[in-house]
C-alpha cells in the first residue's frame, strides 16, 4: 500500500474517533425496578407531582383530615385507589369519609376540585360507640368492602357492597377494650392463607389479634413464655450512648397507628410488615413523631424495628397508610411515566393556614429516587 492510501486509512480512523468523542452522554441508568420491601424510605411528594400544595393530597382546614386507610381498587395493578380517612363533620364529631384517585395522588373532592367533597361513609350511631368513629381500616372481602374502625376504645366493623354505603355488622364491638386500656388504630389484613389478622394500639404499644371470619377475634400474645399479654411492638428504650453512625431511636415514648402489610417474599417467607407512628419523648403536649417500619418473618411473635424512621418531616406526621402498585407494563395512558413498582405513603401531618395549624393528608413516595408524572384529572366520583 502506498503512503497516500495508508494516510487515508489512518486519517479516517482518527476522524472517527474524534467524532465519537464529541457525542454527549445520556443519563445513566441501572437503578430501575430495584427490589424493595415497599415500605420506604419515602420522600415527600414534590410540586408538580400533586395538584395543589405538595406534599398534601387532601387538605381542608375545617375538616382536619387524618388517619387515612388505603384500599387498592385493582389489587395494585393500576393506580386506582380509594382512601378512607377521618374528618370532623359540621357538628365537630369525627366521621369517616371516602374519596378516590386514579393516580394515587389526585383525589376526588380535594381542595382544588371545586364543588366536590369526599363522601361520608360512617358515623357513630351504635349504643357502644361514643360520639366519634376513627381509625378506619378497609379490606376487600369477596365482593364486599369491610371497614374496621375504632370507637369509644373498641373496634367495630361495617360492610358495604360498593365501598360507599356501609352497614354495621353487629351491635357490639368485634374487639373490646380490656384492662390494657382503650384500643385505637386497628389495621386488618389477610394473611396469604386467608386468615384475618389485626394489629391495634393499646396503651403505648401495638398488639395483635387473629380471626378466621373477620368478626370473632382472639388476641395473640407475642411472647407466650411470659404470663403477661405481650405486645408485638413496644416503645424503643432510650439510648444514653450511641455507637458511631448509630441512629437514635425516634419512638421512645409510644408506638401507635399500625398499618399491617403481610406479604410473601421472594424467598417464599411470610413477612409481616408494619408501618407505625413513633412518638419521641419530649414536648408532652405535642410530642414529635415520625413514621417507622417494623417486621417479622412468620405468623407470630414480636416485630423487629427498622434502623430509623422511613418518613420524618417534623410535622407531627402520624397514622400511616400504604398503597403499593406493581404495573404489568409501562402505563401509556394519561398516567404514563409511573414507575412499574412503587408505593405511596399517606399520613396525617401538620398544615398551616394563616397562623393556625391543623391536620391534612400528605403523601410520600418510595422509591425516593423515582419521579411521578404530572397528576391525572380529578375522578368523577368518590
Amino acid at each position, binding site marked *: *500500500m502506498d503512503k497516500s492510501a*495508508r494516510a487515508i*486509512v*489512518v486519517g479516517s480512523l482518527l476522524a472517527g474517533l474524534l467524532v465519537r468523542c464529541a457525542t454527549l452522554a445520556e443519563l445513566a441508568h441501572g437503578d430501575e*425496578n430495584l427490589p424493595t420491601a415497599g415500605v420506604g424510605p419515602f420522600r415527600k411528594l414534590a410540586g408538580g407531582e400533586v395538584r395543589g400544595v405538595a406534599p398534601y393530597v387532601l387538605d381542608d382546614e375545617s375538616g382536619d383530615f387524618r388517619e387515612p386507610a388505603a384500599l387498592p381498587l385493582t389489587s395494585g395493578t393500576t393506580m386506582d385507589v380509594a382512601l378512607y380517612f377521618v374528618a370532623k363533620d359540621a357538628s365537630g364529631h369525627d366521621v369517616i369519609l371516602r374519596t378516590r384517585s386514579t393516580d394515587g395522588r389526585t383525589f376526588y373532592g380535594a381542595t382544588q376540585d371545586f364543588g366536590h367533597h369526599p363522601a361520608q361513609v360512617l358515623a357513630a350511631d351504635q349504643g357502644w360507640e361514643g360520639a366519634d368513629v376513627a381509625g378506619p381500616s378497609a379490606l376487600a372481602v369477596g365482593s364486599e368492602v369491610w371497614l374496621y374502625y375504632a370507637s369509644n376504645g373498641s373496634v367495630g366493623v361495617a360492610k358495604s357492597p360498593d365501598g360507599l354505603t356501609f352497614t354495621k355488622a353487629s351491635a357490639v364491638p368485634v374487639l373490646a377494650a380490656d384492662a390494657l386500656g382503650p384500643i385505637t388504630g386497628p389495621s386488618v389484613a389477610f394473611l396469604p392463607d386467608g386468615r384475618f389478622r389485626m394489629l391495634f394500639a393499646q396503651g403505648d404499644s401495638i398488639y395483635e389479634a387473629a380471626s378466621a371470619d373477620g368478626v370473632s377475634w382472639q388476641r395473640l400474645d407475642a411472647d407466650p413464655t411470659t404470663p403477661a399479654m405481650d405486645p408485638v411492638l413496644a416503645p424503643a428504650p432510650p439510648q444514653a450512648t450511641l455507637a458511631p453512625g448509630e441512629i437514635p431511636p425516634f419512638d421512645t415514648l409510644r408506638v401507635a397507628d399500625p398499618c399491617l402489610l403481610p406479604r410473601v417474599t421472594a*424467598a417464599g417467607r411470610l413477612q409481616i410488615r408494619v408501618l407505625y407512628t413513633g412518638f419521641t419523648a419530649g414536648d408532652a403536649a405535642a410530642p414529635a413523631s415520625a413514621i417507622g417500619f417494623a417486621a417479622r418473618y412468620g405468623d407470630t411473635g414480636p416485630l423487629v424495628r427498622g434502623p430509623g424512621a422511613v418518613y420524618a418531616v417534623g410535622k407531627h406526621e402520624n397514622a400511616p397508610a400504604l398503597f403499593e402498585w406493581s404495573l404489568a407494563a409501562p402505563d401509556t395512558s394519561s398516567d404514563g411515566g409511573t414507575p412499574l413498582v412503587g408505593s405511596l405513603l399517606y399520613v396525617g401531618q401538620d398544615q398551616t393556614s394563616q397562623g393556625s395549624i391543623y391536620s391534612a393528608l400528605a403523601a410520600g413516595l418510595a422509591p425516593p429516587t423515582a419521579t411521578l408524572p404530572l397528576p391525572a384529572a380529578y375522578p368523577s366520583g368518590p
Partner: protein
Amino acid sequence: MRRRSRLGLAAGIALVFASARAEANPLDTFGFGSRGTAMGDAQAADASDFSANYYNPAGLVHAQRFEIAVGYFRAEHQLETNGRNNGVDPVAGLVGGLVLPGRVFGVPIAFGLGLHLPDDRLSRVRDLPQTQPRWELYDNRNQRLYLAANLAIAPWPWLEIGGGLSFMASTTGSLDITGEANLFNASQSQLRHQVDADLTAVRYPQLGARVWLGKRAALALVYRGQFALDLNLSARLYGDISHLTTAYYALKTASVDAFLPQQVVLGGSFLPIDRLKVDIDFTWVNWSAYVTPVANLDVTLAIPPPVGGWPAGISPPSVPAPAQVVPLKMSDRIVPHVGVEWLAYERGKFKGFVRAGYEYQKSPVAPQTGPTNYVDRDRHTAALGFGLRVDKPVAILSGDVRFDVHAQLSVLPDALTAKVDPADPVGDYVAGGLIWNLGATMLVGF
C-alpha cells in the same frame, strides 16, 4: 525497516511515560476484539494481533507486519431482580489498536496500542448508598475508556516478553454555592454555583511472557496490576436564609469509584491437528483486595437560630449521622477460559474460521444477607464467532485483511438473596439475567 523501528520505539516511550489522560477497563468482562471474545478470552498464549495489547503484550512481537484494527461491540444487559429489568446501561463502543513490529540490533520488537472508546461517555462516576441494590460488577465499572500502550521483545525465538501501561483517570472536584435562599419562595432565591472538577491520570502496569514449545504449542504468563479510581468531591454552601439567619454547610466525600484487582493469567495454546487450535487460560483475580465503594463523608453544618426563634412550620435540618460502612467481602477467584478455532475453509487467498469459547466466573461477592446489596451472580459465558482472512486482497496491499464477528451470551442463573433482618428495607430478592455481546472487527495488515 530501521526507520520504522525507531518510529515505533519513540512512540512507545512517549506514550508510556507521558502523563496522557486515559482510562480502563471493560475488557475483563467483554473481551477485546471479536476473535478473542469468540474464543472465550482464552488468548494469553495465542494473541498476536492488536488484541495482545490486552491479553498478553508479549504476543505483539509475533506480528508479521504493521497492523491496524478497528471494530465495534455492543453488550446489552438484561439483568433483573425479582423478574424486573434493572436497566443496566449497555456497554458499547469502538475497539481498535495497532501493532508496529520491527527490529533493534537484530532483535525483534514491537510497539502496540489498544483502545476501547465507549459510545456514550468516557467515564462515569457513581456514589451510591451501600444499602441501594446495584449490579456491582456491571453497572458502573465497565463504563469507561480503555487505552493501553505496550512494548514487546523476542530475545530468543522461543521467548517473547512484553509490558506496558494502561491508563485510568481518577476524579476530584468541588462545588461551591453561595447566595441567598428564600425559604418562603424558592424561585426568589439568588444562588451562585461554581463547579471545579479534574480528572487526574492513574496508570497501572501489565506484563506478559510467552514461551513457544515448538511450532504447535505455547505457554504464557500475564500479570495485570490493580488500580483504584478515586472519587474525591467537596461541596460548600454558604449564604443568607431569607434574612433570618446564615447557613454554612460543608461536605467532603472520598470514595473509590472503580477498583480493578490485580490478575495473573496462565495460558496455553495448542494445535492438536493442523486445522484446529485449542486455547486454555486460567485467570487468578485478586478480588479479596476489592475496596468497598462507599463514600466516607465529612459534614459540617452551622445554622444559628434567628432572633426570636424559627417561624412556625420551619425547623432547621440536622447533620445526618455518618454511615457506618459495612465492608464488602469478596473472594479471590480462578476463572477458566477455553476457546477453539477451526480452519473450516481454505481456498486460494481465502481462509474461513469458526470459533467457539466458554468461560466461567463464580461470583466473588459474598452473600448479601445483611444491609448491603452488591448484587452479583455466577456467570457462564459462551461465545461463537466466524472469521474470514484474505491474503493480499488487492495489489497495493502486501498483507492481509481479516474480518471477524462474534456473539457472546452470558447467563447469570437466578439465585436468591434472603435477608437476615426481617425489617431490611430491601428484603429478599431473586436476581439473575443475561448479557448479550455482539461485535465485529476488521484488521488490515500492511
